[in-house]
């Protein structure tokens, strides 16, 4: 498993999710803290492409052997792509939570929501 890391170029939601914003779209996933708490991920149930997600609401579930967690959307929008590779190798979420462990890409409906997210330093200071 990777060491604890929280890339500076990402924005963070207190429910342990991150967003990488690129113009009108954002890539979303869960943080190192979340995957560490879950243990080895065995199943990721993605939403459908085309469906809408709302900031602060769960949009998917991620399962380890002994636990299920809601994945919370840090920002709202329409799903334009899901990471199909996770169906065969869900452990990517543990090994590379910010890279190959990305979950969905959304077309943002309200980019100003980024103001509700925090930077890496603030997020990690809230972890205890």
């Amino acid at each position, binding site marked *: 498993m990777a060491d604890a890391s929280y890339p500076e170029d990402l924005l963070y939601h207190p429910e342990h999710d991150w967003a990488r914003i690129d113009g009108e779209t954002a890539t979303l996933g869960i943080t190192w803290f979340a995957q560490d708490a879950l243990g080895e991920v065995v*199943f990721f149930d993605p939403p459908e492409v085309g469906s809408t997600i709302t900031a602060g609401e769960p949009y998917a579930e991620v*399962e*380890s*052997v*002994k*636990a*299920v967690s809601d994945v919370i959307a840090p920002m709202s929008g329409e799903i334009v792509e899901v990471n199909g590779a996770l169906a065969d190798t869900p452990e990517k979420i543990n090994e590379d939570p910010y890279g190959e462990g990305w979950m969905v890409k959304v077309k943002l409906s309200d980019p100003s929501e980024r103001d509700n997210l925090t930077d890496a330093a603030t997020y990690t200071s809230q972890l205890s």
Partner: protein
Amino acid sequence: MLDAIGVGSIEELFDRQIPAAVRLGRPLDLPAGMAEQDVYAHLRELAARNTSAEDEITFLGAGMYDHYVPAIIDMLLGRSEFLTPYTPYQPEVSQGSLQVMFEYQTAISELTALPVSNASVYEGPSAVASAGYLARLANGRSRFVASAGLHPHSLDTLRTYARGFGAEVVEVPLADGLTDPAAWAAAIGEDTCAAFVQQPNFLGAVEDVEALAAAAKEAAPDAVVVGAYDPIALGILKPPGECGVDVCVGEGQPLGNRLDFGGPSFGFFAATEAYLRRMPGRIAGETTDVDGRRGFVLTLQTREQHIRREKATSNICTAQALNALAGVVYLSWLGRHGLVELAELLLQRTHYAREALTALDGVEALHSQPVVREFALKLSAPAGKVVARCQEQGVNPGLALDDDVLLVAITEQRSRADIDRLTEVLGAAVAAEREAVHA
């Protein structure tokens, strides 16, 4: 021990933890305890006042059947290592139980030709209701369409569960002993959550499940087609996985389990791959240990109540592991060809019985559909009274239904001689009752 705890008496343990206001303060109003031999005598006395399959030649069926239970099942189920452990939460010391579950799942999957099976549910009718819950969680709809050919207990149980989670049950009538195909197709629509059929149905008739499933899918592609099957009949009947059935459930008692006045037995529950993560109950999976040894564990536990809690696929915790062990041992004991031979034997003897009985005066077939091991007769006399007369002669002719219907079941323990005796006794009983009416 009290010193180690730091209290003066056992009483103090309770005085300090249970408020005086709710203390019972008197002995339980129950008889005093008895020595082992006296308990045995009492239980034997109670047993003596029951007429079991040992005491009469019985043709009772309707969901549970007097098949022969091989002696090795008694022996294996009596072994401490199978009888007394808990659910396998520590797999390293439960490989026996877990491998049995895996083998059982394989056997049920083979029998039903459906790829996914769980490790058992309680019994038949609640398995039907469980399938309804699965469908409800899968497509969110609120209407169940159920053939009137389902066992009355299954229909009743389905309704009870459905009322809980907010679904209604619409019944499709039978016509000439089979689910009315036109009524079935008409009843199923876009709002249908699941459609249920029993095979063979409650009156023993072999349904055209393939046609019914196709009709259901045509009218409602997302509805779940549920088939409730007799496991012994599956020895020769086309399996549900080849008939378009999505979920197959059934009463497992005929597979190596005693009658036991209705339980414990087990329910089997199998489905297509699509419903793997919606399955209720325990599932065992194959894996390896750190040294590369082949082993088995409970898997996909995140479906279950102890993890998923309010979002679980069911609330099942304790299932029927010991009874499922009997099931897989029985299927191994019958073997690939034995199960077929058994079912063929039943097919022939059932036909013989139906022919012989319908040749009697005052006895007609309720329907003439193909049957495998059970059939329904229409009597020209009150069925309940006919049954009572037959029992006086040491023969239980079957289940009296409504006023004048008799449901007759055949197992391999009912020989030709037994069937001939039934014919004799039933004929006399019907004649006597008809006379009594006219007298």
